[in-house]
């Protein structure tokens, strides 16, 4: 199964409440995916030229203070550290390849879940309410979020195998379904130099889209590439810095409901996840068609 949710706010007055709106959406869909939960929150709260790096602690009482000092030494420039539950977000103005190399060098046990000027990724094993409480998701502000509740079907239940997969800068993907030809696409991407974190099928789609987008494609082209190249069942929700997009395979057997108001665009596997959103009774609610790309803002 798996549950997916997305919320893109048009009304900036709601931004302080983003986390508070997203947590109930995920909680309701825990029935579709109790194994693990994850969320990508988009918030512009760093200076131009800076980027955020979402890091996952290797153990509960990890020494983040010491880690930040080592990272600063390695980068020879200051970093800001923001603790989130057990995990942390590091803010740095060094170039992303430099920071990612430093993260790998300072402590390879620290997992790196994504980076960008807006994105923060939190994911963990456990049902939605537990994971969201662990990281304080309800108190997070931002202008858009995508999230996932996982019922694992094709790879292990670990933190790394949880969604979202944030393959590129400010790019995140959540997936309901399963790909049948992910191994061959993975081999093609590996031959092109793409590096994977896991053996998860959804990560292949995330890496594929990132590869296409970092080689000249826009999001629409990359998603068309998914429709053309990927076999299997999928409803995909992808977020970039300024938009969210949905695409479903030709069978469209993995559900998706879209609700749009003047204040937001919300998507979820089932309408139950949208029922608590403000003004939902006035929303235009529909199910997206197969093999059509929907992007918001349009």
């Amino acid at each position: 199964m798996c549950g997916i949710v997305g919320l893109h706010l048009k009304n900036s007055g709601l931004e302080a409440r983003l986390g508070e709106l997203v947590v109930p959406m995920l909680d309701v869909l825990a029935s579709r995916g109790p194994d693990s939960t994850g969320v990508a929150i988009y918030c512009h709260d760093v200076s131009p030229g800076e980027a955020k790096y979402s890091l996952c602690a290797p153990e509960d009482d990890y020494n983040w203070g010491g880690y930040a000092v080592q990272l600063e030494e390695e980068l020879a420039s200051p970093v800001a550290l923001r603790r989130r539950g057990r995990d942390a977000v590091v803010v740095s103005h060094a170039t992303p390849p430099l920071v990612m190399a430093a993260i790998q060098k300072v402590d390879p046990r620290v997992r790196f879940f994504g980076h960008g000027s807006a994105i923060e990724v939190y994911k963990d094993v456990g049902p939605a309410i537990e994971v969201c409480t662990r990281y304080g998701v309800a108190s997070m502000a931002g202008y858009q979020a995508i999230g996932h509740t996982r019922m694992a079907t094709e790879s292990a239940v670990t933190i790394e195998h949880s969604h979202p997969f944030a393959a590129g800068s400010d790019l995140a993907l959540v997936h309901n379904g399963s790909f049948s030809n992910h191994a061959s696409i993975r081999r093609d991407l590996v031959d092109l130099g793409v590096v994977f974190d896991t053996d998860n099928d959804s990560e292949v789609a995330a890496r594929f889209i990132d590869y296409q987008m970092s080689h000249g494609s826009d999001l629409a082209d990359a998603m068309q590439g998914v429709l053309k190249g990927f076999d299997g069942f999928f409803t995909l929700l992808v977020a970039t810095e300024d938009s969210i997009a949905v695409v479903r395979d030709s069978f469209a057997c993995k559900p998706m409901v879209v609700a749009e108001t003047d204040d937001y665009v919300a998507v979820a596997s089932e309408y139950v996840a949208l029922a608590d959103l403000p003004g939902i009774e006035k929303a235009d609610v529909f199910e997206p068609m197969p093999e059509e790309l929907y992007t918001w803002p349009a």
Partner: protein
Amino acid sequence: MASLTALELNCSELSVRAVNAAMRELPDGAVVNITEPRGRHNLAVGLSNKLQITIVGNAGYFVGGLCDGPDIVVDGFVGWSVGENLMSGSLRVRGNASECAGASAHGGVVVIEGDASSRAGISLKGGTIAIAGDVGHMSGFMAQAGTLLIGGDAGESLGDSLYEAVIYVGGKIRSLGADARIEELTAEDVERITDLVRLTGFSHVSPEDLRKVASARHLYNFDALKDQKY
């Protein structure tokens, strides 16, 4: 709109099971408002008493499924398989419907005032489904008997492997499925559509301008000599 004299069953206070059990005990003619449906699945399923039910808001999967009597109005959107295996009575959805609207309906009428998604009327077994707007792909797949009226456009593979069910389309058809073909409207077809337009209130549908999709019946019998491959 919800009736003021109706019994109110609020989904924020009651489980779906409690809501359905309460309705099962009501006498014929009772009027029920189901409030705050909040996308719940399986609302008003398996009822055989002649109730007037209004679901005030957006509902989930299988609304009104297996029913044999009630008239149900959903003042909102419905999820997958609204009116699945409907036996008799009616269902009217004021908003859009997700996939498999009216799947396997044996009787009764399912009216969708908005769009329906993929596989509307799949395996229809004698019921009537009328959709004011568009339908998604594989609609009417393997429909055995009954009528599917589509006021708007139809997606790919409309009427694939049809048996005796008939489909009428007001808008564009992206493609026909295997063994489906366009046939001339007969006087009986126009009469049937006229009745349906009156029943549904689909004033945008003009009966003479619809296209009829029915089975070419080439798949009815297995042809052992076809292509000489066997």
